[in-house]
């Protein structure tokens, strides 16, 4: 689709979100500009509290921006939130599974929430389960699954409507190395086979390095750098360092090893 569709998957200008607290205003995101072409895997990299989740929640229509504009999958975020919702998948860090609910029921209900007729929702659930290796788990309650299996179910829920843009908020946090590698492979496969644009947040540098075409480093609610992992390494890693993405990241966010905020 990406070759027929010149409209970028995400077009964000001046996006901002501030909160009013008794102690004064808090600027979680300050004037973010971002253009993401169709079919890209974009990594949003930043320390805790940088504004990654707030940005994703705004782009997924869950939180209204206090300033700025965005078009998501060609639809205006503010004027046509329903149009955006029909074209995105959103997988929050919390995941969104009811531990008592079975995998099949979660998948079918998600299809129904996307207003698929009952039979179509059932068929889609079976299809997704087959593609994501969940068929044997369909009748298990989600609470009985391993962390890696649960993540797959959550991503399957995000894919029910064949989204143009898939938002993943820290998709591999808390997973063991094997599950992480499996999930990376799944994300690559989603992009390759479906042409889906994937916008993921992470604070794992190896994840950004291994998975993302392009990385935007966000700190204090602002994008402080962007480029491919290789570009970031060569541009920002200090000359006296090992030249890893981590060195680039630490230089960019100004966080030395003594106050290293990341679980790298």
């Amino acid at each position, binding site marked *: *689709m990406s070759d027929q569709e010149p409209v970028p998957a995400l077009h964000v200008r001046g996006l901002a979100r501030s909160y009013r607290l008794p102690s004064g205003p808090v600027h979680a995101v300050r004037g973010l500009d971002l253009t993401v072409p169709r079919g890209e895997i974009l990594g949003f990299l930043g320390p805790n509290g940088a504004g990654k989740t707030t940005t994703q*929640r705004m782009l*997924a*229509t*869950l*939180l*209204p921006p206090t300033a700025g504009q965005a078009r998501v999958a060609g639809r205006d975020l503010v004027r046509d939130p*329903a149009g955006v*919702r*029909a*074209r*995105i*998948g*959103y*997988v*929050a*860090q*919390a*995941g*969104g*599974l*009811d*531990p*008592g*609910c079975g995998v099949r*029921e979660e998948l079918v*209900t*998600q*299809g*129904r*929430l*996307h*207003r*698929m*007729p009952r039979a*179509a929702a059932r068929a889609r659930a079976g*299809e997704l389960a087959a*593609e994501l290796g969940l068929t044997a788990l369909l009748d298990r309650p989600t609470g009985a699954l391993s962390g890696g299996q649960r993540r797959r179910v959550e991503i399957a*829920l995000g894919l029910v*409507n*064949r*989204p*143009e843009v898939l938002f993943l908020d820290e998709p591999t946090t808390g997973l063991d190395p094997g599950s992480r590698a499996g999930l990376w492979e799944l994300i690559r*496969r*989603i992009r390759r*086979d*479906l042409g889906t644009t994937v916008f993921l947040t992470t604070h794992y540098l190896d994840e950004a390095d291994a998975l993302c075409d392009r990385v935007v480093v966000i700190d204090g609610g602002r994008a402080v750098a962007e480029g491919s992992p290789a570009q970031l390494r060569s541009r920002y890693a200090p000359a006296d360092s090992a030249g890893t993405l981590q060195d680039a990241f630490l230089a960019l966010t100004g966080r030395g090893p003594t106050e290293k905020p990341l679980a790298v």
Partner: protein
Amino acid sequence: MTTTAHPAPAPTRIPRLPADTAVVFGRCLRATLRSRTNLLFGMLQPLLFLTFFGPLLTRLDLGADGSPWQTFVPGILVQLALLGGSFVGLGLIVDRNLGVVDRMRATPVAPLALLLGRTLRDVVQLVAQSVLLVLLGFAFGLRAPLPGVLAGLAFVAVLSGALAALSYGLAARLRTPPEFAAVANTGVIPLMLLSGLLLPMSLAPGWLDGLSRAVPFRYTVDAVREVFRGHYAAGTVGLGAAVTLALAALCLAAATRLFTRAGRG
């Protein structure tokens, strides 16, 4: 993987809000049926009152015609709606912390359906529990005409819907279960005492009776007591219906506002 493009799901001619509400209702109802312990514990309190408090009244003159059970069982039903309805918001907070609410809000489903579907489930659950309580009341000696019982259940349905919706609206604005429980308890217990659920306010001294007239549930329970005695044309019934419906409209409007604007503050 399927190589299908990204068609929006087939457009349907079904009106969206009712269809969306039905989907959310179905999901919530299945969750309720899965947790049988929950169903039982929700009924435990009214059941205890019915069993261990009701029989104390059998030899008392409650200042009305009919048996004391015709006064007491309606009170227990309204108590169930009041307690059962007010605390359903806890479930929303749990779902929100699991990410379930955001996951559903990021789909095209009508936001209001997420409130109405849940509320409808609570109405069904509380009416089903009320039916069980009435049947048990009959075993204890309650006698009431069937149309009266049905009318009483209709009052319970409207009241539980109003309170459940309001409870969700409140929960949408509060962060943690303890915070919610504190607010709900503070509101519910005085209102319950002041509405004369366990004993009718006709027994109360003037000041308490006067105070209770400011509490809407009093009019509901008085009306349910009348219909349980077979008095359908009494002014109390009309007043009770009017107050209950007005309360429901108010609660629903407030809940819609609180619920659909949550996350914007």
